[in-house]
């Protein structure tokens, strides 16, 4: 995996909550035995009209947002299926980071991303950033009148919203995920260094296989 480096890029504002993995990559594109070629099918049903032409009203078809590398959405992005193809599609389209807000619901805080999607992102070098609801709103507001550029700084856990006056938002991230992304670590390689511990565990562990 390539180490994640700080970058400045264009933000694509996708004003939808609960964007599910069926929307991100529809089932007809899962019939592949490869890890590549998914970017062109990202958000297929929203990007393209039934006749196959691009739907001009969909945000990713806005010519001003060509080359966008940061996707900004609402709460619970990536819910649904465990298909890693969804992450491959987002990354292969050209996004290097996704931003979504946490949401306060009664006495609990609902995380910005669905669990499996967020986890799959971390295995593919795609950064997921959870910001506060009002911070994400500021990005959406700014995007109403101009093309928004953001700087994504993982090492210092900051997002900078560029404008007449830059605004900086801090974010929290799981320490293991941060280390994996910053160093570009291969999980399997890391775990295999613990082979002796796994073998010792297996010696005394009961799996009840009949």
């Amino acid at each position, binding site marked *: 995996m390539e180490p994640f480096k700080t970058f400045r890029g264009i933000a694509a504002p996708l*004003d*939808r*909550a*609960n964007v*599910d993995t*069926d*929307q991100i990559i*529809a*089932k*007809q594109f*899962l*019939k*592949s*035995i*490869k*890890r590549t070629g998914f970017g062109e099918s990202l958000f297929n*049903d929203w990007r393209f009209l039934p006749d196959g032409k691009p739907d001009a009203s969909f945000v990713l078809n806005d010519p001003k947002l060509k080359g966008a590398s940061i996707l900004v959405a609402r*709460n*619970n992005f990536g*819910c*649904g*299926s*465990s*298909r*890693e*193809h969804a*992450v491959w599609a987002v990354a292969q389209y050209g996004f290097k980071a996704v931003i979504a807000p946490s*949401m306060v*619901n009664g006495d*609990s805080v*609902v*995380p910005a991303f*669905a*669990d*499996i999607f967020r*986890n*799959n992102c971390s*295995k*593919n070098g795609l950064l997921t950033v959870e910001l506060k609801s009002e911070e994400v709103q500021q990005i959406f507001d700014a995007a109403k009148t101009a093309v928004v550029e953001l700087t994504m700084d993982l090492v210092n856990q900051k997002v900078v919203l560029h404008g007449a006056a830059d605004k900086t938002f801090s974010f929290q991230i799981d*320490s*293991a995920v941060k*280390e*994996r992304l910053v160093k570009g670590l291969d*999980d*399997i390689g*890391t*775990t*295999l260094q*613990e*082979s002796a*511990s*796994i073998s010792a*565990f*297996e010696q005394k*562990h*009961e*799996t*009840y*296989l*009949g």
Partner: protein
Amino acid sequence: MGKTLFDKIWDRHLVKTLPSGDSIIYIDRHLVHEVTSAQAFEGLRLSGRKVRQPKLTFATMDHNIPTDDRYNIKDPIAKEQVQTLRDNCKEFGVRLFDITGDDQGVVHIIGPDLGITLPGLTMVCGDSHTSTHGAFGTFAMGIGTSEVEHVLATQTLLQNKPKNFRVEFKGKLGKGVTAKDMILKFIGIVGTAGATGYVLEYCGEAVRELSMEGRMTMCNMSIEAGARAGLIAPDQKTFDYIQAKDRQFAPKGAAFAKAVEDWKKLSTDADAKYDRELVIDASEIAPQVTWGTSPGMVTEVTAKVPAPGSLPGYSAVDIQHALTYMGLTAGTPMTEIKINTVFIGSCTNGRIEDLRAAAEFLKGRKVAEGVKVLVVPGSQRVKHQAESEGLDKIFKDAGCQWRESGCSMCLAMNPDYLQPGERCASTSNRNFEGRQGKGGRTHLVGPAMAAAAAVAGHFVDIRSWK
């Protein structure tokens, strides 16, 4: 302090906690299917790695399989995926339940069917509905393809420990109300992200009274609330289910008796603490029907389609999007929504008890004119069982199509899918846009509600049916 059921399973499987904060968790059962595994096996091949524990790994094909002529996969890419699974299983020494055998079926149906699923284990599969197996008191979760490769290579996963969320269903369910209604009600309350970061433990009188099939339906949809997994403590019903005949991978005789003694220790300690708790009065739950494009967009069959801005947790824009996609008008009674397709099956409701519940409503009745009904058993075993009970005849006499097993119209990767604008009463688990076919409109319900809708041509409150 005491431990929860989940804490105990976690502790039994903790190999090591790394300096990064991740824990290495041992995996007891790995289920593999054709859609999410090819790239993982390819990864092993490229790095010269082997499957660490082939005997703990079980494969089948289910997502792509046609349910009419299963040996004749016309889609060349689907066919390649199925053949790739066969080749990979052979190369890496993994046991495969092929479509030519009687043990094939939807991966989450055959796990319990064959005795692969047992209490106190850790189970994973590259499929989010792996949570189904939690009905046995198993920590079971869906993973992505990178993690499939990780488990194949190391028989472990890197995990951060989720929190404990106790969901109690107190009291008894009313007549005609099922496990599907319980879980839809729960998702409606907490929302589709309401349990993100948690493992759910379902408990209470109404959960205890559910059959194993009902418990599997509940745990199956834990992921629709965002949970990492759902769990139900094992009890005598669990042990009886495992001991039934033909569960070839379950322990037998003295080994079974010893295992039961161990499994009885799994239940949550009296002084254990949960991070979050919710109590739902089971006696107040009515049959549920979804109206929107997310499983949390659900209401009672006696209610009306909600208006934008009328629900906490959903913006007016989100509700309007959903209503537009679904072709519904706010204020329409749910019972006035007409359907033209019914799907009975899936890992949520494709077990024998589900088919019996649907058949009970269809016996001696006819499907409404213009309604197409697909009945897809969850596994070949379920199919044979249903046929031995004469359920296939009831379905066919009523005008339903009786199919072979597979995931079918739940995710519509095979040739079973909706046309744009078609409206389906479905016993599956997701009503996302396009899930059952581009432009298709899905309403999630339980099997009896689906059968009743097939007969009436619209949703009905089955409690008022004779």
